[in-house]
């Protein structure tokens, strides 16, 4: 959350160096008055975040209330931790928390790795037309909804008419029942995650590569560095700050499952569930037939708290080893 206030801060530091060396620590209002134009420019952003991200946080109280329409959000009676009971008494709290964390960890790692790989490859590609075509094709899955992807996956993998099983049968091999064996899904899910997101991710990294000073590269070429050396010693190190920021942001949502994906691809398949159930799908299944704002909010709050703890730890670690690149 410290990204947005950063520009005024750096600017004020620059100013401070010039003007107010003698004043020691200027007060808050003094600071405001001095950089009023910069702060004015910051106001719309601040208002946006206050309205859409801070104000709704008050809604957290619903997780501790027996919500009814007459009382509304703040007038409904308090019921303590009761809304959390269904989650922890299901005996699955640990399994889904673990699954959510591990899947997202694998997703994030694979996504970062392949995004950087693709970005570097595209940046080094020579042919302009080929480059643009490759980028477009990679970006295409980003626009598909998981509903459509689920249909594709089903048509690839289903037992009777699936592409893969038809192929196996024609080759005289035994068809495999993918939808009742969880082991396949440990690979299928990350594969489709990366397939869908790598186009988007590579653009973020590509923009960072494009922003690099080309003269460094030229100098290295003149000094006799080959393409691999340039990537290894120039591009990758220069990508480090972007990578750290994007990974930290990714970690910030590591407890938020990719609900659409799990729900569309796995659905209510009980056979796969111990290996593929995440917090979001468990909460959804628990409440889909008897919607309850309090219990749903409790699930969301649990995720938020875990997210918060994890991002604090991750940022703390970055700060400890590489102060300059920490988020806040």
């Amino acid at each position, binding site marked *: 959350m410290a990204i947005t206030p950063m520009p005024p801060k750096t600017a004020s530091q620059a100013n401070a160096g010039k003007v107010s060396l003698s004043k020691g620590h200027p007060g808050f209002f003094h600071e405001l008055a001095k950089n009023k134009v910069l702060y004015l420019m910051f106001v719309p952003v601040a208002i946006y975040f206050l309205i859409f991200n801070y104000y709704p946080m008050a809604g957290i109280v619903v997780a501790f209330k027996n919500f009814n329409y*007459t009382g509304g959000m703040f007038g409904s009676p308090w019921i303590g931790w009761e809304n959390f009971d269904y989650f922890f008494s299901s005996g699955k709290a640990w399994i889904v928390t673990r699954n959510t964390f591990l899947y997202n960890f694998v997703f994030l790692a694979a996504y970062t790795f392949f995004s950087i790989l693709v970005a570097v490859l595209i940046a080094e590609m020579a042919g302009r037309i080929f480059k643009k075509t490759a980028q477009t094709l990679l970006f295409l899955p980003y626009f598909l909804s998981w509903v459509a992807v689920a249909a594709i996956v089903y048509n690839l993998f289903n037992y009777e008419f699936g592409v893969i099983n038809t192929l196996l049968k024609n080759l005289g091999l035994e068809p495999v029942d993918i939808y009742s064996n969880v082991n396949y899904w440990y690979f299928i899910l990350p594969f489709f995650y990366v397939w869908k997101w790598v186009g988007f991710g590579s653009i973020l990294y590509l923009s960072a590569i494009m922003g*690099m000073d080309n003269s460094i590269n030229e100098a290295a070429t003149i000094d006799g560095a080959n393409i691999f050396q340039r990537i290894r010693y120039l591009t990758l190190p220069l990508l480090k700050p*972007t990578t750290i920021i994007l990974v930290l942001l990714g970690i910030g949502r590591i407890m938020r499952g990719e609900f659409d994906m799990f729900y569309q691809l796995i*659905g209510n398949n*009980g056979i796969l569930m111990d290996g593929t159930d995440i917090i979001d799908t468990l909460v959804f299944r628990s409440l889909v037939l008897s*919607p309850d704002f309090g219990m749903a909010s409790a699930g969301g709050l649990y995720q938020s708290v875990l997210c918060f703890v994890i991002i604090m730890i991750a940022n703390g670690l970055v700060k400890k080893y590489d102060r300059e690149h920490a988020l806040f």
Partner: protein
Amino acid sequence: MNKTKVLFTLLSAIIAFTLVLAGCGNNNNKDAQASNSASKPSPSASSSATSSTSTEPSSASPDNAIDTSEEVKLVGYLLGDAPAGMNAVVAELNKKLKADINATVEFRYIGWGDLTAKYPLVLAAGDDVDFIYSANWAFYNQEAAKGAFKELTMEDLQKYMPKHVAATSDVAWKEAQIGGKIFMIPTATPDQKVPVTLIRGDLRKKYGVSEITNFKDIEPYLEAIKKNEKGMIPINADSQYDFAKSFYNYEWATGRATLDTVLITNGWSGVHTEWDDQTGKVYSQFDPYISDSQKATAKVIKSWYEKGYINKNAISNKVRSKDAFEQGKSAVAYGNTNDIQGTLAKAAENGWEVEIIPNLSTKGTYPQDPYINNGVAIAANTKNPERAMMAIDLMMEEPSYNNLVYFGIEGVNYVVKDGKIALPDGVTAESNTYPPDAAGFWFTNKSQHLPLASWSEQYIAHKQSLKNILVPYVYNSFSMDTSKVKSELATIGTVGTQYQLPIQGGIVKDVDAAYATLEEKVKKTGLDTVLAEAIAQTQAYLSAQK
């Protein structure tokens, strides 16, 4: 530091960050909006029309006439999607309503996909809804308990809905009561329907399988299809509707024909009552009386699954057997009396002979739908409950209104031919912009409707047989107050999905072991609490009935 680099890094980070926050913020925003509008009932667009019966004692005439001098615009919510011809029908409807009660109605739809999420939100927001479709399977209990609906007194109903009160049996109002108070207007004519299984009569005869009138005798037919029809799966089931159907149809026909006592229409609580048992004994599913027979059924279904009579990936398939049946990809279709009409019509077009097997208990019965299976509720925050009730009264009971909202505009969407509802010349079932029953007005008085010309003799015979099949179910008007056990029910539901559905689909390795796991998990999550609560509440209900 390189300036461009910093700029790009920041830019990309900010873009990503905004996306992240936008994603995270979504849920909270919804809650906030919901509560906002709930806590401060802001003046709505239709506020100009202040309560029409804000009684001025001086003008109150002795004969109870209702003052409709002020024009009112009502907003009503229905379920499903608006058919293409909706606007024309609504324009016609509003012309009539304007003349009769000086009101107009705007209809909005809650799509099936959003039902569970959007229905409570519409009511929570609350300031722009006057009436809404309501039913026991569409959260009537839960929403009424949360105070979403206006309480209706019999005096008000008699005053504003005289036609409907006259047409509706007392039982209906009793069913609609929650804690002695009425929160919805139930239909006068509950649906007459039973679950049915359709099979291909032409194929059955072709392969010399003898006639099937009971689902328990269906196996030879499945076997013949599997052996002879390569492009067809005997039961091509989907993951939602059909998945557990084979299990229940077989179990009802051979063992215990039970309903879920707590969650009658949606969900699973592990607590059951047999619909043929007029004393209404409440069983745990793991009472041997129930579970022994269920295990036997599960083994049969498992054998069907293993022999390839049921598709392997039913649990991930999204195409209903009914639709696969129409395309010739399934030899069996599951549905009910009402929703198979289209399938029958399409089969007739293909020249197939279809046989209807009703899915009944061993005694040949099925419980009658309760009245509260279809109805309308008045939103708690409406400013014009009187006019809403009057409009609903007309739509439900006045034949011209009833036919308009149910069948569309005469001459455009339907014509009456030989005392039957038929399509006008040049209009086909496909091109009709307002197909019967499709617009969500399921609460109107269906006894006023003429039969459809498209019904086959066999379908008419099936409909006529229903009166010997449908029996009253002792807990039809019982609606359990689930507020004390809601977290148990939520957990039992997830356990059911994970451990019971695979048993019912026949995809577990060992039925007995799977039942043992299911029992262990369900007991751990509080089945006994739910059972005790259900027994207590049903006992109280039964003694109150006497």
